[in-house]
């Protein structure tokens, strides 16, 4: 697959962002760190799906990114409420 420099740059930036998020996910001393890392990763990966849709030259994959961006919020919020603890 021949890519022009801009596409290469976008892919490199996304790869770097994923690696940074992965570092925090694996290292993060507390559960909150891991949770925030997972949320950040979901944002980065939504962007990655959009870039992949551009590379495949197909608009079909944009729906996946839409669903992902909308639903990552629900999971993060549910886990955040879990971290608040049970009945106070």
């Amino acid at each position, binding site marked *: 697959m021949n890519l022009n420099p801009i596409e290469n740059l976008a892919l490199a930036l996304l790869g770097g962002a994923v690696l940074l998020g992965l570092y925090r996910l694996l290292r993060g001393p507390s559960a909150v760190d891991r949770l925030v890392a997972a949320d950040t990763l979901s944002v980065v990966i939504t962007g990655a799906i959009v870039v992949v849709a551009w590379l495949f030259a197909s608009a079909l994959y944009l729906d996946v990114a839409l669903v992902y961006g909308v639903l990552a919020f629900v999971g993060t919020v549910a886990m955040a409420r879990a971290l608040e603890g049970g009945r*106070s």
Partner: protein
Amino acid sequence: MRKAASLLFAGGLAFLLAVLVAKLPFGETPMVLGKQVLAQGAEQTGTANLVTSVVVGYRAYDTLGELSILFTAALALGLVLGKRNAAAPRDPDAGLVLRASADLLLPLLLVVGFYIILHGHLTPGGGFQGGVIVAAALFIPILARPSRGLDHGVLVWLESLAGALFILIGLAALFQDGAFLEPLLGKGELGRLLSGGTLPLLYLLVGVKVGAELTGLLVNLADAEAVE
């Protein structure tokens, strides 16, 4: 003794997977069934998305079975957790940010969910994905304000109605001297919203049923009393 059994199980699984992968063709032509579906799916069912034509066209009977599995899971969850103690206090409400964004997100998520369901035969998506989104949409307000709760009666009615209509459409096709769940109402023009006969209707019912079931499941889990 138990460790030996575990090791035996893991070894057997590894052997099975190794054999499976060694025999699998990767990156070659589709299998016999896939070839047939790719060649004739669009003409026979009139849907642009061939995965949809497999799920609610060729394998609609299996989809009915899958819906009943999901229904059984939701039913068993309700039975296992038991009825909610009416006197038990509910969780406190969430903060301002979550409450405000819940009000904003509910209509947005519902629109996205029904878009995904209704365009299931044209673009990726369909009843299962859209049903999950609808369930998430209905669940966010409960997450934000647990004190308000949700009416289970409406969910139960919606779910039963969708299931009954699914079977009724199948029976109508059966009496139209076809097979059970065979698509009716003509094919339409490929790629339009009104195409594929009854397949989009079936997928809409699947979406409503899955959404109602998963919402009930989440509400039941959220209502379960905390364990000391």
